[in-house]
């Protein structure tokens, strides 16, 4: 639902909304129904926990710490728990490593099982019947529609999540990022890359300069 943000009417509506929100908050605080701190805390929590940040931390650590990566691939649940994240309702977490010859993609053909504590909320398309049915039959075509043309030489493996096992892809670290730290790598890792429908790209400044 994109909105145009020009026109004085819209600007006025924005100013009014900001005022109304402040008045509402102030009145609720005055009545003792709410505290400002709690609202701060809720916003912080939802901004952090709802996104794929936890998964991105796992990937960036695996890229920079070979021992961690080994533990992660051997026992995803335990290695992810080391960073303080738990799986979905006790489901086992399995991490699938992409290599120059194998690429992994995750789906849930039955419903919409998804490692949400790690990746945040599933995107709408993940839950769509089209993705669930087609990615199994024609993964290469589906990935092309996501804008990723994979060479025929790369084998694509599709993994079907269920209530016992949740998968997450450990994408390939992009070329040219060897000197980046864990903290610098983290923001490069997107939700789509951990589902397996997008590649992790090096920052613009590092691209094409090899």
């Amino acid at each position, binding site marked *: 639902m994109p909105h145009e943000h020009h026109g004085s009417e819209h600007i006025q509506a924005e100013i009014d*909304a900001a005022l109304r929100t402040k008045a*509402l908050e102030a009145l609720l605080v005055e009545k003792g129904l709410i505290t400002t701190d709690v*609202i701060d*805390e809720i916003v912080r929590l939802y*901004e952090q926990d709802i*996104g*794929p940040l936890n998964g991105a931390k796992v990937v960036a650590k695996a890229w920079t710490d070979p021992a961690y990566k080994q533990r992660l691939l051997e026992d995803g649940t335990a290695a992810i728990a080391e960073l303080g994240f738990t799986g979905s309702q006790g489901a086992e977490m399995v991490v699938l490593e992409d290599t120059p010859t194998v690429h992994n993609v995750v789906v849930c053909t039955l419903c919409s099982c998804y490692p949400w504590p790690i990746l945040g*909320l599933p995107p709408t398309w993940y839950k769509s019947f089209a993705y669930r049915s087609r990615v199994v039959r024609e993964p290469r075509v589906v990935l092309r529609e996501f804008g990723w043309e994979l060479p025929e030489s790369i084998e694509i493996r599709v993994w079907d999540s269920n209530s016992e096992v949740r998968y997450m892809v450990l994408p390939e670290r992009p070329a040219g990022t060897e000197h980046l730290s864990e903290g610098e790598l983290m923001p490069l890792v997107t939700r*789509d890359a951990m589902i397996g429908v997008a590649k992790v790209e090096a920052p613009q400044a590092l691209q094409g300069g090899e």
Partner: protein
Amino acid sequence: MAGTTDRRIANMDEQLALPRKNGELVFEAPWEARAFGLAVALNENGLYPWRDFSQGLATEIATAEQKGISSSYYERWLTSLEKLVIDKGLMTREELDAWTAKQALNEHDDHHHHDDHTHHNLHVH
């Protein structure tokens, strides 16, 4: 508060879905984050079940679409939240209007007295 996100809120679907980018919440202005936090906090404090809020929001969205009003997601969110707190008897419309008017005056005064400090009223995230 529980210290965790509520999946019933986070996973609201289709037209009720929270605006997101790469899975993360998107707030286009600080007030949108405050309005979001207010609705969630009142629910966590037990002042209404989340269903009451989500149904009100659905009604607000449907009405706006029907009338062709091009308001944003969080403008509709705020309007439905105002209606809900009044419906639940947490405040009256008159009180809310009076506080909004007072807020407008305060901001007006602030701008006149602290022109060097124009962004003081924003909660920056």
